[in-house]
């Protein structure tokens, strides 16, 4: 961890009650959802994290509290630091405020998280599905969503499997 990053982590601990973790040279801040927008505003304006690199999520199902971690990566061109911010979320109707106003680049990334994990971003300007078809049911990257497979048809069970296939019904 560079000296500037160390100072930033120390300041963030005082101001937003974050916890910090360190592994293999990566620095992570654990932030609670109520400080989300204020913390990112501070990180961008005061600590020069001017670039959003990524927004994604991890599902810890069947654990419920917290079930999700929303993971942000931000980059500071001035100090050449990457910072990871993790925000724990409960499994029941997970929602977070959007950071689209702070980093416009988060727009599509938040859409993707909503599409694949079903985490709502309050105040998002355009929360539609992005990679899945618009009429899709469910959120595929959740751990309780099955991977799915194609049954192999042999001569002895081809007809039986055909009955279960959607195209055979109508």
């Amino acid at each position: 961890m560079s000296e500037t990053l160390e100072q930033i982590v120390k300041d963030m601990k005082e101001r937003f009650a974050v916890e910090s973790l360190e592994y293999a040279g990566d620095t992570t801040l654990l932030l609670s959802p109520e400080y989300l927008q204020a913390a990112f505003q501070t990180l961008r304006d005061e600590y020069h994290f001017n670039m959003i690199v990524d927004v994604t999520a991890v599902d810890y199902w069947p654990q419920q509290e917290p079930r999700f971690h929303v993971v942000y990566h931000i980059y500071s061109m001035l100090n050449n630091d990457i910072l990871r911010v993790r925000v724990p979320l409960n499994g029941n109707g997970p929602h977070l405020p959007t950071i689209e106003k702070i980093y416009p680049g988060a727009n599509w990334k938040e859409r993707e998280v909503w599409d694949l994990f079903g985490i709502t971003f309050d105040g998002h300007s355009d929360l539609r599905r992005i990679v899945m078809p618009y009429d899709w049911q469910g959120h595929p990257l959740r751990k309780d969503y099955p991977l799915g497979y194609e049954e192999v048809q042999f001569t002895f069970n081809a007809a039986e499997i055909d009955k279960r296939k959607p195209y055979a019904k109508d």
Partner: protein
Amino acid sequence: MTNIREVTVDELRHLVSDRAMTGETMLLNMGPQHPSTHGVLRLLLELDGEIVVNCIPDIGFLHTGVEKNMEAKTYQKAEVMTDRLDYMNSVGNNLVYCLAVEKLVGLDVPVRAQVLRVILTELQRISSHLLWLGTSCLDLAAMSVFLYAMREREMILGVMEMISGQRMMTTYIRPGGVWRDVPPEFVPAVQEIVNVMPGRIAEYESMLTKNMLFTERTQGIGVISAEDCARYGLSGPVIRGAGVAFDLRKARPYSGYEQYDFEVPTYDTGDIFGRYMVRMEEMRQSVRIVRQALSRLPNGPVLSDNRKFVPPPRSEIGVSMEALIHHFKLWTEGFNAPRESVFATTESPRGILGVFLEGDGGAKPYRVHYVTPSFVNLQSMPLLTRQHFVADVVGIIGSIDIVLGDADR
């Protein structure tokens, strides 16, 4: 049985202006089968005559659920899926995944393997830029450049085939090094490419840089400022074409890039022409890096000898019981990674390519997420195309060099 739901105009109303509702402006679908959208990209254009008022990209046609599939495979098997994301930069996709796995388990890579990785990613960068040059000029109706660019790209694909048996989906870079050592003909073949390329790049430039048909279609079109690039998280030639010398090979070196002598080209206009100039110069710099790497290619092992993560060579299995056990364990169960998460970044031909990897103590990744430059850069389409002609949209899509496999994952 899925219920098919029609998307109504109301759902898209917040994206287009009120004039579209009265019929004053026209809504036009471009793609997903349009040849200039480089794959399956659909653009919903709102047009006032021939002027683009708004552009709404629609992606996801090539979504294959790679991230979900990778969660169900061991660390070694999941790597094969990474080639298929950005199929123009498959070596780079392998590299960033391997860097993440190595960072997660703490695995060292021998020097020879690192130099080979640099040579291959730089060759891949040249081949990706050549394909970009060919196809985007084809969109601007310059047919002959495409044929020239394909001629040189063929030489690089030949090298890929020589080392791995595959022209595009190589999976040659593995956690802990590379798959196996390169054959003796590898160095002369790469030397040949390095000798030929500078002259060929000058040839392309003589056809385009001062060609009025080309400059009229590119200069002052699709302009983006350096501030907007940072705000939207754009990277690669797009941000360098806007005058910011931001390159992760310099900023956060990996695979020993800090030992090579190269420059980060920039151009300060921020238009299509700027991105073109940056990519042409980048090919020259890649040639320079490959030349240096060839001169310092050391002898030695190409795979780590840490047997807990890297399977032993075939010769050892016959004589060592321990090697046999490692071989068996690694190919049936795989290796276990700690319950931690890491983020690895590289500079792909298109920009920041990152992998967020989380382990759960078992042999399968708990979560893999690819941060892909095409996805991020495509987001700037509304910004780039506003107030330009429909015909320029084609040039702008070409200039941000998207690969839809990369954007949709």
